């Protein structure tokens, strides 16, 4: 355990300003740590890892890590990731998005990336709110919850990222939380290594925007809530309303880039 932090620091861009931009208690930092630990555990060379991020709090993650990093436009991260992966299938492309990025403005890109089964890892940091713009309602905000744009409680039903990704045909679908760091590490490694399109949803509390508006007294309350209200999917019983975590879908279809190379090979005249 002891070298964890040392290791993380090895992967950070030290000419970048730390502490990072995330608020006190923001789960994004924990996910960032998990990402670095996973890449290290898998022994992926830094040069072969590409982090493609969208816009929002999660988007800022890219700048801190010493990989190839691309901070794209709001919602479009997956389209860039698709281009990068197809252009150079050797690369491990990890796409970091928030719930607004992945489910709202980039919702179409998400389902098509899943349908296409492009070999990209989509890491969706779901904090159930638009954090960077000041706490507006997102497509993951639970019905009835408060935000700057749902001052009387959200009327809309939120997306279930896992169900959406499953239905769209993603090869690997999993969920964890920033409270369950060990589980997050394991799933992250699986998600990165699984061929085809992988979706990993990480529930990360947003104490500043979501917590304050929804009667969480402090950061710790939000993590306690995560602890109490999530359950491993294997242990989920009938009638349990807690949020299941774990692996939800594991298919074995080849990624688009593999199918494409095969096509290219088949079109090659025999030499």
């Amino acid at each position, binding site marked *: 355990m*002891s070298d964890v932090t040392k290791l993380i*620091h090895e992967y950070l861009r030290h000419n970048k300003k730390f502490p990072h931009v995330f608020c006190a*208690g923001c*789960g994004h*930092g924990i996910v960032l740590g998990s990402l670095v630990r996973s890449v290290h555990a898998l022994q992926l060379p830094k040069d072969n890892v590409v982090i493609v991020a969208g816009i929002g709090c999660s988007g800022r993650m890219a700048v801190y890590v010493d990989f190839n990093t691309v901070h794209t436009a709001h919602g479009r991260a997956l389209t860039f990731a698709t281009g990068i992966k197809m252009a150079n299938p050797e690369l491990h492309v990890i796409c970091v998005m928030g719930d607004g990025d992945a489910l709202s403005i980039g919702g179409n890109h998400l389902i098509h990336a899943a349908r296409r089964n492009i070999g990209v890892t989509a890491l969706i940091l779901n904090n159930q709110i638009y954090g960077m713009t000041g706490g507006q309602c997102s497509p993951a905000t639970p019905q009835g919850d408060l935000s700057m744009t749902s001052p009387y409680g959200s009327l809309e039903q939120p997306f279930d990222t896992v169900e959406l990704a499953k239905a769209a045909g993603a090869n690997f679908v999993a969920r964890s939380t920033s409270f369950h760091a060990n589980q997050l590490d394991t799933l992250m490694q699986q998600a990165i290594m699984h061929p085809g399109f992988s979706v990993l949803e990480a529930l990360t509390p947003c104490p500043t925007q979501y917590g304050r508006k929804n009667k969480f007294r402090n950061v710790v309350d939000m993590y306690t809530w995560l602890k109490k209200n999530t359950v491993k999917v294997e242990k989920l019983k009938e009638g349990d309303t807690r949020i299941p975590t774990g692996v939800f879908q594991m298919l074995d279809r080849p990624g688009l880039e593999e199918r494409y190379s095969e096509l290219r090979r088949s079109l090659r005249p025999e030499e």
Partner: protein
Amino acid sequence: MPKKKKGQTLVCVYPDWCKGCGLCVAFCPGKVLQLNALGKAEVVQPEECINCGFCELHCPDFAIAVRPKVSENGMHIRASCEPGETGGAGKTSGSDVTPQKAVVEG
């Protein structure tokens, strides 16, 4: 897996990076840490650390390191956290300190 044996470790907190969220304080099984007057985490009962690693894994700011007192080769015995070992403030040289560039987007 971490050994549940007390007193084998040093818990180091880098106050410059700590934002005082209190996660480590709240979830530490040994109550090793506390928030000080400045709102930063501080080690108050180092001997109670059971090396579970929760604080290190869950510090969103990479501001905590849990290190064994005896280093890998068994020779060096540490009494305190040394700068440079853990990156962060130690690794950032003085000349690199620029005013925080806050860029807001939306």
